[in-house]
């Protein structure tokens, strides 16, 4: 499946765009997505940490992702 990945904060700088498209197997889990992104964008690994959000919820590594999900990369937050 083709997945559109939203990026915010420094992740947007790393991707060079507010979103990128990646190819993943349908039902792939969050850990697989992270590994793929870290291969394509090695600077992601230099972040203090980052999370993946699926449909506006923080996702765990084992959460599977489907094509209709809204997926976002959440670098360390710093609001307030």
């Amino acid at each position: 499946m083709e997945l559109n990945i939203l990026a915010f904060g420094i992740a947007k700088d790393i991707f060079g765009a507010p979103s990128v498209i990646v190819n993943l197997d349908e039902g792939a889990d969050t850990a697989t997505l992270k590994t793929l992104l870290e291969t394509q964008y090695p600077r992601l690994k230099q972040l203090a940490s980052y999370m993946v959000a699926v449909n506006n919820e923080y996702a765990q590594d084992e959460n599977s992702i489907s094509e209709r999900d809204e997926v976002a990369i959440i670098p360390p937050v710093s609001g307030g």
Partner: protein
Amino acid sequence: METQIEIFETPLNTQSCIEWIMSPASGGIDVFIGTVRNATKGKMVLKLEFEAYKPMAISEMSKITQQAFEKWPVQKILIHHRTGTLQVGEIPVIIAVSAAHRDAAFDACRYVIDTLKQTVPIWKKEFFEDGKVWVAAHP
């Protein structure tokens, strides 16, 4: 148990927050106002930029207010957060909490801002004379 949770691109208005939070059933109101400080770790700050993943930020702020209602006997909680470019002295965030008694208002207000800074998908970029940096991105 009312909430008012909003993200604005325009300047926040402390007075309208206070008007919303006051009520005849309240005895104590605690208001936290974050302001853009002119320096970070001794380095002069020129301006800040805040970016939000808006629908998720609203959802996470809503969770925080629900947690606060479960933890303390508070009546109303307001969270206003600003996005875009802010100059020194401007207000990125206002939290206001009302309660019958002040201890609950203080505890809940502090919980809301502390938790917001940990979980809500909003990002701050600091601009200095010699560059800019996304806060908290790197160790």
